[in-house]
């Protein structure tokens, strides 16, 4: 059961968080001018906070249920985890700060931070997965990582196609061709789930003794967490019609 809890949050992050990482990666392609970029960011704005907590929750589940693995996985991959965290921080701050000052240069700078952070995050997730999945380390791990990044990028485009309108939507749907936007999203999401599951199968997942206490608690609160997220999805289910607060 503990393994399913971990998988739930890890896969939830890959699918939900993966979409907003992908949109960040594709930002220069999707948004050609400052106004367009702002609208593209509005596609992920209400979701990115709620998405990234899936990874935080996964870290919490690791700390509580698999503390030994947590230490091994993180400290054993310090060369990947440090860039991952830095990319995450840079990307987040780009999203938070870009709209706070009106200047074109200010926005351009932080849009750059969003793009760089999104690519950094995607590639470091990819490198981490290639270590776990294939046991590859060093520069050679960048090849499978690039593949993971491409899948994340495609997933982001699929998500953007579902959220944006007009020219932006057409640009985002470059991979879907015509009307298959939802199908493309389902496909890229499935690809990420497969990668995540294969990675998880390679991890030594033996739950610690606290599981007997913690697992029931997690099982009780999880429906509540999903309901809260569902409220957000429902509230922002319509296509983006203009810029957001970011």
């Amino acid at each position, binding site marked *: 059961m503990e393994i399913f809890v971990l998988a739930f949050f890890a896969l939830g992050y890959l699918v939900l968080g993966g979409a907003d990482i992908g949109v960040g990666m594709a930002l220069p392609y999707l948004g050609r001018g400052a106004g367009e970029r702002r609208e593209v960011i509005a596609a992920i704005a209400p979701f990115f906070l709620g998405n990234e907590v899936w990874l*935080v*929750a996964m870290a919490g589940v690791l700390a509580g249920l698999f503390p030994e693995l947590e230490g091994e996985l*993180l400290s054993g991959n310090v060369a990947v*985890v*440090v860039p991952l965290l830095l990319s995450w921080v840079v990307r987040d*701050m780009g999203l938070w700060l870009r709209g706070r000052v009106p200047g074109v240069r200010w926005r351009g700078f932080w849009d750059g931070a969003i793009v760089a952070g999104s690519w950094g995050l995607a590639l470091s997730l990819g490198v981490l997965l290639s270590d776990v999945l294939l046991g590859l380390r060093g520069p050679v791990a960048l090849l499978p990582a690039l593949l993971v990044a491409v899948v994340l990028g495609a997933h982001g485009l699929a998500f953007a196609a579902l959220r944006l309108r007009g020219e932006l939507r057409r640009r985002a749907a470059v991979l879907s061709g015509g009307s298959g936007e939802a199908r493309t999203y389902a496909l890229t999401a499935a690809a990420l789930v497969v990668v995540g599951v294969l990675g998880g199968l390679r991890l030594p997942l033996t739950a610690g003794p606290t599981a007997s206490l913690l697992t029931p608690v997690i099982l009780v609160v999880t429906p509540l967490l999903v309901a809260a997220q569902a409220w957000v999805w429902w509230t922002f289910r319509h296509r983006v019609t203009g810029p957001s*607060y970011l």
Partner: protein
Amino acid sequence: METVDLARLQFALTAGAHFLFVALTLGLATLVAVVQTWATLTRNPVHLRMTRFWGQLYIINYAMGIATGLVMEFQLGLTWSGLTEFAGNTFGASLAIETLVAFFLESTFLGLWIFGWNKLNRWAHLAAIWVVTLTAYASAFWILVSNGFLQHPVGYERAGGVLRLTDFGAMVANPTAQVAFFHVLGGAMVTGGFFVAGVSAYHLRRRTAEQDLFRKSLRIGIGVALPATLFTATFGGIGFETLQPAKAAVWSGDAARIAAAQAELAAAHGPGDYLPPAGWVQTGALTMLIAFAVMFFFSGLSAVLMLIRPAVRSLRVWHRLLTLMIPVPFVAMLGGWVFREMGRQPWAVYGLLTTEQAMSPLTGAQMRVSLTAFVTVFAALIVTNYLLLARAARRGPDAVTLGDRPLDAPPTEPALSL
């Protein structure tokens, strides 16, 4: 510097920065939630503008709190895997509960609050900020349960070289955690109160627009700061009762007590130096106490002055001093935190695992690269973020974009349909 010192410095800088941001977050969230409640009940436009103004400052501050917080959480596994392997089965439980029960909901609802402005029903929107505020408290609570365990381990047994939890209730009820929670919560209210009062005083002194809004805010800020200062000091005082013997001895400076504490620990754990660094412990505590005295005196005086209408309007010396007071609660927070955390050295888990043993098997080069990278990025971001906070505070409610009518909404909609 040894590798373990680099790791400690990295964690200390991350946690210290995080503490500064979350202190203001906790305090401001409460004030924003209360003001928004009032605004929702009365539909008073001044309170609506207050909610948006203080809400925007809250969000700018919040961003950096998340960034530092998530790096801190991952640092536990990254640089302190000895700690997670040895004691993860105990305090990891409260960390897990914190992320799932508190932080997950806090972030989800914060998104709903920020982007759901003018979109959600106004009661639902009000509920969102209250969920954000209460889950922020819950977050602080569970983190301090984890910290309390490291300070004063209870409810565990030692089996096969690692700890396991035997009594979850005891870990939660740990007085070292409970007292610290109320102390920190009070400290956050002090920080929020002085911040709101100080920013309001700036606008009153400059005679900017919205004098009414800032007179109201000034009174709220001081009205919170004075009782919160007393509340915080009370729990701080109780906290002195829960100090570890070595910390208490070093703080007292009494040579006989220090020698006794050292002898007792050496008898229990073998030869070694078991005393925390006296300079840090005493400076931390003194900083906190002096700052408390200043805040207590000043908030008491201000509580009287704010009842005098002409003073609120135009006692500009007082306004200037109020603005200058903004950093003092932050200094007190850091002082208290240094006292608490340096004071438990050399232990990571008091009496069970030393900080040196808690360290991950990382090389000095790895630590130096990691430390340099984090410090560079965080320093730049923190400075930027504080400049932005100051900019938004100075520009006042007119420049607020939080809760703006969506640009795409039909123009017939009222500008504020909260």
